[in-house]
């Protein structure tokens, strides 16, 4: 049980690291899909081992929302966007270094959490939290709308993993509300991005600079 959970959580973190590293939008989207599938598997695994059968429903709902629906919406954002050439001299090295620091930070921040939980999965909590911090990092350092949304979704995935590992998921009503909110956020962002593209012929948020001061 512990080994499986640790492995899945580690692979989830690895996917988040690769999202930091990859430049291509379709590539990043595939990594997000892979991470979502890993988390759905994690939820199913915990459901089977711990006997919390209702987690299977959560796993299925999560898979439908994050592996099928959300990527489909995001693909619409990617497809219509002109590909921006990667600026020369911009390597992912510095970003990866920052990501490494964030993983360390997450172990420190999570010390009181791991100390307080007695579940067998508690050891993997910092991995999930690190994945969510990496998502946050991608989101706030991104310069275009697609990166913002993707970072946000990886962030959200990490929190889902955190709740799974630390408490075998949240109460089902809350979980349902969170899925609904995430879905609506993605749809809204897509709508806004489509409109931005119509106005500016780009999804680079650098061009949004009408409001200052």
């Amino acid at each position, binding site marked *: 049980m512990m080994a499986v959970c640790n492995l899945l959580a580690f692979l989830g973190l690895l996917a988040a690291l690769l999202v930091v590293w990859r430049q291509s939008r379709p590539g990043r989207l595939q990594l997000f899909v892979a991470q979502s599938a890993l988390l759905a598997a994690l939820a199913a695994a915990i459901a089977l081992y711990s006997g919390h059968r209702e987690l299977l429903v959560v796993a299925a709902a999560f898979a439908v929302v994050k592996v099928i629906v959300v990527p489909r919406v995001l693909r619409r954002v990617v497809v219509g966007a002109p590909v921006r050439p990667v600026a020369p001299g911009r390597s992912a090295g510095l970003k990866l270094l920052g990501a490494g620091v964030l993983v360390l930070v997450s172990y420190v921040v999570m010390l009181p959490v791991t*100390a307080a939980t007695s579940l067998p999965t508690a050891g993997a909590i910092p991995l999930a939290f690190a994945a969510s911090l990496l998502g946050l990092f991608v989101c706030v350092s991104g310069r275009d709308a697609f990166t913002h949304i993707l970072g946000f979704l990886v962030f959200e995935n990490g929190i889902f993993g955190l709740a799974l590992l630390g408490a075998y998921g949240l109460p089902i009503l809350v979980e349902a509300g969170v899925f609904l909110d995430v879905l609506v*956020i993605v749809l809204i962002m897509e709508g806004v991005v489509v409109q931005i593209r119509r106005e500016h012929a780009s999804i680079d948020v650098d061009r949004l600079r009408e409001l200052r001061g």
Partner: protein
Amino acid sequence: MRLALLLAVPLMGGLALLLVPGRARRPVHLLASALTLAAALAVAAGVVQAGVLAAADGMLRADALSAWMVVLVAVVAGLAALEATRAAPPEAARWFLPLFHLFVFTMLGAVTTDDVGLMWVAIEGTTLASVFLVNAERSRESLEAAYKYVLICSVGIALAFVGTVMLYFADLSVLGAGEHALRWTMLVDLAGAMPARLVQVAFVFLLVGYGTKAGLAPMHTWLPDAHSEAPAPVSALMSGVLLAVGLYGVLRFKVVVDVAAGPQFASRLLGAVGLASVAVAALFLWRPANFKRMLAYSSIEHLGLVCLGVAFGGPWGTAGAMLHVANHGLAKAALFILAGRIRAAYGTADIAAVRGLRGAMPVTARGFLTAMLALMGLPPFGLFVSEVMIFRAGFEGGHAVVAVLAIGFLVLAFGGLLRALHAMLDGEPPAAVREISAWTAAVPVTIALGLLVLTGIAWPPGLAAALERIASAVGP
């Protein structure tokens, strides 16, 4: 029952507005707003009698703090609803009013649920319901504002979710297992046994998360854009009550962390964030260029003051802070409504382009002047009283340095606001600008200012007792 009704009315109203034909929209909208207000007053009356109302197996719960917020949301929503019949942008006529009521529904839901997980869902819902309202005018600026709003608030609120999950861990570590583990009442009961470090870490996440929604510095960057680009009734709702709903989230968790880790921890953080907000706002307000942005920054200033009041605590601090939330909501509702009319008449929100308001729109100018003086904290309006209460708490509680600094920033903001007001009111009026002639236009502003005079010089019976009960609910 009353709680279920309170949530059902705006939700049903919103749905009905989607379905009815164009002509029937206005009466349905006004009816739904009036019924929401009536349901809110019924909840408040129930709380006054019974102390606490609960419904749906305890999932819905209203204590004195909830009731205060419910009435504030409903009153400001009522004022904004009156203006919405006049100021709804024609581009968005079909879904503007349905989303307006959905927005009110999410705010009422956030303050009447006992489940902090559902509270999170509802507060996130406030963003989702209002983002299209911010972009209702469909201009480049409003699109940018909407993008920033949904992105920054979603990320912020996700941080609050991390905090909520951590508190859930802390709760489970005491409780073992339980389906009610995310109930706020349960959290408060068990807080004494929770690991203090864990609750502290969780509170930092919650303060940053819900603080983003409350527009506290340094998480305030979405606020001036969203407030200034949204249509007037939406700005009034966002500034008047949405920020307060965000702060309500922080207050609920302050109670938990106070029990788990002592009252010092939350107070220090709130004091720092509050002072930073007042400072950031005052520095901007010294030289504002756009009067809607000016009002938005003033919201940051006043929410900062509310945080300071809660941080000072004591018998005066929390009560003053809660009174200030209501006073600020009323003043901002009036001001954003008037600012929207001025912008519509002059075709711009630049202070430099608005001249001779007194000559061109005498009634609007008088209302704007009065509401601005109220906002600056002059008697006989309520903001004077609540600010005095907050600063009295600061001096009595031994926070004289913070209080003096905050007063300094307030004076700075006062000077800037006065200068902007002078620039707008005086000068040669442009020929094309006309006053709004309908007498109904004066109704929302008069009601707001009238209520502010009540909280300023003639407290209605029961107000003092209500504030005392809220203060005891929020903590030491």
